[in-house]
């Protein structure tokens, strides 16, 4: 069942700025990673989902409710973490958390307290005096404390230290197990890779790639680094079908990228010689994304 549905959404600011004919869906229990360069249209899309902006054409809906005309009903099911957090003035973190829980008519603060503890947050200080990371933690507590069915997280780990980023990734994974549907924009590949089921890449207002994370992982060939005792053995890989990416004759190492279908061929070839070590170079999605960021893989 699709929870978030964006259909042919267009909002142009200039001919190149904005979003154009953009469609995406996030299904029940799915984590959708939304990535793309600055100014590509991520936040504009999110503004439509929250009902802050009216579509020029097309439609954004959540739980079959129109995001513009029924934004208040939509918001009841939503947890939102804005990209640039700006809190109301003259409040402490705890005031804000209490205020929002009053507005949402929460029966208890159990989840909020748990999150505060989990992120080692001290919410007693004035929001205006808080560091970027601390503000981000307050924002996270506010987005998750009412246990919403749907989460929209715009660059959620900005300002968090690596330990807290890991805590956050755990939290997202837990929410996913509970069946929550999540749309998350980010520039941190690791974060996307370890949480998202599906990744959409947006560039200049258009979705240019929308794939399951596994597909991206599987579609890339595997890369192995093989070291040899004898330099002469390396010759085997320098000329034939394997076409090494790198040859380091000083160390006696070659780096080979091959399709899984050719793995047996490689193993047979290796079995005839003396191999010192062999390891897989972990394929990161990063390379895949980087291509899109630079615009090498597709012209829009």
């Amino acid at each position, binding site marked *: 069942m699709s929870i978030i549905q964006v259909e042919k959404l267009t909002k142009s600011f200039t001919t190149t700025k904005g979003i154009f004919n953009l469609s995406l869906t996030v299904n029940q229990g799915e984590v959708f990673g939304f990535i793309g360069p600055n100014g590509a249209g991520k936040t504009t899309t999110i*503004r439509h989902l929250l009902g802050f902006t*009216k579509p020029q054409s097309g439609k954004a809906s959540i739980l079959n409710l129109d995001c513009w005309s029924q*934004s208040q009903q939509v*918001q009841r099911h939503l947890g939102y973490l804005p990209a640039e957090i700006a809190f*109301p003035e003259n*409040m402490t973190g705890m005031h804000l958390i209490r205020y929002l829980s009053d*507005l949402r008519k929460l029966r208890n603060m159990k989840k909020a307290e748990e999150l505060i503890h989990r992120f080692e947050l001290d919410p007693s200080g004035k929001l205006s005096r808080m560091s970027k990371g601390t503000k981000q933690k307050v924002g996270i507590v506010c987005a998750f404390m009412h246990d919403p069915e749907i989460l929209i997280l715009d660059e959620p780990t900005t300002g968090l230290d690596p330990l807290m980023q890991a805590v956050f990734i755990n939290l997202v994974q837990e929410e996913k197990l509970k069946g929550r549907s999540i749309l998350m924009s980010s520039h941190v590949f690791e974060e996307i890779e370890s949480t998202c089921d599906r990744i959409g890449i947006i560039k200049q207002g258009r979705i240019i790639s929308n794939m399951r994370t596994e597909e991206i992982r599987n579609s890339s060939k595997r890369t192995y680094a093989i070291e040899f005792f004898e330099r002469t053995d390396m010759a085997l890989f320098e000329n034939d079908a394997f076409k090494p990416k790198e040859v380091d004759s000083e160390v006696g190492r070659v780096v080979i990228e091959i399709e899984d279908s050719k793995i047996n061929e490689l193993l047979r070839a290796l079995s005839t010689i003396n191999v010192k070590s062999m390891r897989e170079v972990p394929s990161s999605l990063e390379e895949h994304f980087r291509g899109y960021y630079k615009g090498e893989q597709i012209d829009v």
Partner: protein
Amino acid sequence: MFNSTLFRQIAASNHKLFIVITAILSALITVIMSVFVPSTISQIAEANKNAGLNPLGDISTLSDFVGNQYFGMFALILCIIYTVVLGNRMIAGQVDRGSMAYHLAAPISRTTLTVTSAIYLVSSLAVMFAIVFGVGCGVAEIAQPGKLDISTFLTLTFGFFLLQTALSGIVFVASCVFNRSSQSLTLGAGISIFFFVANLLSGLSSKLESLKHITIITLYDSKAIINDGSYVSGLIILIVIGIIFFAAGIVTFRRKDLPL
């Protein structure tokens, strides 16, 4: 339409401004009520008898002084500052900062947000002038018992509250239309100050008298109130202006795109 939690939050985040302005207004009315006893007023009137232009306006009675100087000048300036700052801060200021996202995602509908803000703006003015009226009457009773015409003072205060409501409506609509604090302030403060200056100039010479038609401040006719003239229609127009501007702000804000 109205959310009490939001109302309390607005009150909490703006209480300092309210207290400061109310304290200054109360202090000024205290000074006026205690200094301008009948003997002082007659002395001033005597001294100004032959002056061509009386800088204090017509002040032959205490009510005249309150009408001309207090509500015509000090309170007017202070209240314009109050409504401009508060009106801008409540809507455009929060949109500009981005903190509006927290209220709207809470979820508060846009209409609830603007209506609750408008109610705070108007009710804070009401409380402010209730306090001013109370302090004024109290001090007059102590300093010069029986000399203050309380019903005239009440009408002056109430009429002034209606004038401020109309002015705050203009500031409010500017705040709802613009997404930038600077633009909202320019329009809100600009129009208020323009009205204030036009009102001031229209009283200075007969050549500039026609300026009184382009400012809404002259709809609050303190002279007519004091001298039992016809002032009611002016006040009704102020109420209508207030309602129109607040409604326009609420409708505009509901329909526009927000950069949050």
